[in-house]
C-alpha cells in the first residue's frame, strides 16, 4: 500500500518536473510565435503602405513652357489654369506665382476689377492676394509662392513649379 503511494508520489513529482520543462519550452515557443506574428504584422503594414503609394504617376511635369515674352503685355497678370500658375509682366520684369490657394488648394482667378489695380481671388473661401502674391484678405495662411522663371534658348519663358523662391526675382527681357 505504502509502495503504491510512494510510486504515485514519485510519479507526481516527475510529472511536476516535466511540466516545468514543458512550460518553459512552451513559453519559449509562444514567445517565438508571438514575435513572428509581430514581425509579420509590421511587414504587412509596411508592404501595404508601399503598395498603396504609386511609384509612377501620370501627372504633368513641373517645368512649363509659358510662351514668348511678347505674348504678355506690360502690366498684365495671365492665368494658365491648366498648369495652375500666373505669369506676370511687372514693372521690374517677368515673374510667376503659383495659382493654387495656400488655404485648401482651390484654383484662384485674376480679378482686374478688385482693389486698386486688380487682385487674385479664391472662389472657395474668399482669400485674396495682390499681384505680388501677398494676402490681403481671407483665411489663406501664406502668400502665393513665387516660382522660378527663366528665358530658354528658344526664346520661351519657362516656369519651374517645383522650385519656390525665397526672395523675389525678375526676368528682364
Amino acid at each position, binding site marked *: 500500500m505504502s509502495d503504491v503511494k510512494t510510486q504515485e508520489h514519485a510519479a507526481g513529482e516527475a510529472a511536476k518536473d516535466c511540466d516545468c520543462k514543458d512550460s518553459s519550452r512552451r513559453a519559449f515557443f509562444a514567445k517565438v510565435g508571438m514575435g513572428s506574428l509581430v514581425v509579420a504584422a509590421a511587414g504587412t503594414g509596411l508592404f501595404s503602405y508601399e503598395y*498603396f503609394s504609386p511609384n509612377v504617376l*501620370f501627372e504633368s511635369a513641373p517645368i512649363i513652357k509659358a510662351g514668348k515674352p511678347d505674348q504678355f503685355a506690360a502690366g498684365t497678370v495671365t492665368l494658365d489654369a491648366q498648369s495652375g500658375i500666373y505669369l506676370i509682366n511687372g514693372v521690374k520684369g517677368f515673374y510667376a506665382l503659383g495659382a493654387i490657394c495656400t488655404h485648401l488648394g482651390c484654383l484662384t482667378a485674376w480679378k482686374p476689377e478688385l482693389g486698386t489695380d486688380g487682385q487674385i481671388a479664391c472662389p472657395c473661401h474668399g482669400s485674396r492676394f495682390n499681384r505680388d502674391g501677398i494676402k490681403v484678405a481671407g483665411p489663406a495662411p501664406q502668400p502665393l509662392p513665387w516660382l522660378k522663371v527663366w528665358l530658354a534658348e528658344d526664346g520661351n519663358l519657362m516656369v519651374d513649379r517645383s522650385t519656390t523662391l525665397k526672395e523675389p526675382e525678375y526676368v528682364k527681357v
Partner: protein
Amino acid sequence: MSMATTIKSEFERLRNTEVWRTIFRSGSGASNLHRAQAVQQNIFLHLFSVKVRSRALEFSPTWYLGALTLSTFFILIATGILLMFYYHPSVPQAYADMKDLQFVVASGVFLRNLHRWSAHAMVFLVFAHMFKVFYRGAYRPPRQFNWVVGVFLLLLTLLLSYTGYLLPWDQLAFWAVTVGSNIAKAVPFMGKQIRFLMLGGNEVNANALLRFYVLHCVILPLAAILMVGVHFWRIRKDGGLYVPEKKKL
C-alpha cells in the same frame, strides 16, 4: 367557411409541409415557445431578442430613428448596386455616365435621386438617432459599448458620404475633394503622406477617383454592414432597447 379562415387553414397546412419545415425549422404552432423559436432559428432574425417589451415598440422611446436609419441604408445599398451597372469610375466616362443615368437610362434619374436623397436622409437620421439616445441617457451602462459602436457607424456614414461625393466627377465633386484632401494634409507629421495615399497621387485625378470608388462601393459598405450587425446584436445582449419605467400618475 369564410375566405379568411380558408386562407388561414391553407397557410397552416403549408407550414406543416416537409419543404416548409426544412426551411423554417421551428415549424407551426401558436405557443410562446414556437414564436420564440421562429425568431431564434432564423438567421436574419436571430440577432434580435425573442421577446421585447411592448413599450419598446411604441413611438416615444425611440421615434424609430434607428430603424429609419437602417431603412435608408438598405435603400442606399439597393439603389447603389443598380447605379453601379451604368457607372464607370474613369476620368473620361464618370461624368458622362452620371449624365446618362439622368437623361438616357430608364428610371436612372429616379434611382440616382433616390440614392442621393437617402444619403442626405441617412446622415440626418444618424445624428437624430444619436441625439435621441444621448438625451434619453440610453448610452449609459450597460449600453456604453454600443454607443461606441454607434460612433464608429457615424464615422463610416460620413466617410461613405464623402467618398460618394467625388463620384459624379463634376466641379462640385472635384473641388470638394480637393479641399477635403487638403484638410487631411493638415494632420501633424504625416499629413502629406495621408493625402498622397488618399488620392493615390498629388492631385485629384484618375487614381483618386478609383480609390474613392472602391472605398465607397466595397470597403466602407462591408465595414458598415459588419458594424450594423454588431450594433443590433448588442441591443439584445445589453438587455433590449432602453425603456424607462412609465411614471405612475
